[in-house]
C-alpha cells in the first residue's frame, strides 16, 4: 500500500506537472483551431503552476513566495486568455473561420 502515501513526496507532483505540461504540448501541436490551441496552452500553464507550488511546499524556505508567483501566473493567464479570445473573435469576423491552417493571408 505504498501508493497511499505518495502525496508526501515532491517527485509525485513534479511528474504530474510534467504530465500535464506534455499533454498541453501535444494538444498545442495537434489542434487545428485557435481556441483549441488556447485551451492546450492553459493546460501547460497549469502544469507549470503545479511545479511552482510543489517546490514551494517542499523546498522553499519561505512558502508564501511560490504562492505569490502562482497568483501572478494566474493573472497573466487571465490577461492572455482575454487578449487571445478577442483576437479569435476578430479573426472569425474577418475570415469566417478559426482554423489555423486557413489563415493564409500572409503566405507567399
Amino acid at each position: 500500500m505504498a501508493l497511499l502515501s505518495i502525496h508526501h513526496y515532491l517527485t509525485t507532483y513534479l511528474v504530474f506537472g510534467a504530465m500535464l505540461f506534455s499533454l498541453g504540448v501535444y494538444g498545442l501541436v495537434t489542434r487545428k483551431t485557435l481556441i483549441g490551441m488556447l485551451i492546450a496552452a492553459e493546460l501547460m500553464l497549469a502544469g507549470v503552476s503545479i511545479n511552482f507550488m510543489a517546490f514551494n511546499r517542499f523546498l522553499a524556505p519561505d512558502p508564501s513566495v511560490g504562492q505569490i508567483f502562482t497568483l501572478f501566473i494566474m493573472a497573466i493567464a487571465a490577461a492572455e486568455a482575454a487578449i487571445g479570445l478577442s483576437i479569435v473573435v476578430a479573426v472569425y469576423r474577418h475570415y469566417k473561420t478559426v482554423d489555423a491552417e486557413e489563415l493564409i493571408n500572409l503566405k507567399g
Partner: protein
Amino acid sequence: MTPVPPPALFSADGMVGLIFLVMIGVTLFGGFIAATAERLVRALSGIVICFTGVAGFYYFLNSPFMAMMQILIYVGAICVTISFAIMLAAPEEKIKSSPSNMLSGPFGFMIAALIFGGMTALALTTEWQVNAKTASGSVREIGIHLLTTYSMIFELISIVLLIAIIGSIVIARGGRN
C-alpha cells in the same frame, strides 16, 4: 526526503491517500479530454475537470488559498470566457480530410513523450536540497508580502490586466458595423 511509512487503507491517512489517487486519475482524464477531444465544447469540459483537480492538488500542497483562487480565476473566469468565444466564433469543427500537418501525427506525440520523459528523468534523478522553513506561508503572510516585498509587481500586474481589458475590447470591437 525521508520516506513516510505507508498507512493502512482504512485509516484517516489511507483515505487521504486514496482520495489523492482518485484525484490524479480524474485530473489526468480531464487533461486528456482537453488535449484530444474532437469538439471544442468537450475540450472545454475536460479542462474544467482538470482545473478543478489542480485546485485539489493545491489543497494537498498546503495552500487552500491558491485552491480557491484556482477555482475562482480558472474555472470561474477563464473557462467562462473561452465558452463565450466558442459560442461566438467556433461553429462546428469540420472534420476535414485535408492533409494534416506533419506535427499532428505520431511526430507530435513523440515530441510530447520526449518532453515528459526528459522532465520525469530529471525529477527522479536530481537530489533536491530541502531548506528549513522560515515562515508558514499563511494567507496573512501572502498579503504582507504582496503589499511590501512584491508591491511593484502587484501594481504592474494590475496595469497589465487593465491594458488587457482595454485592448481586448478594442480588438474585438473593430470591424463591426
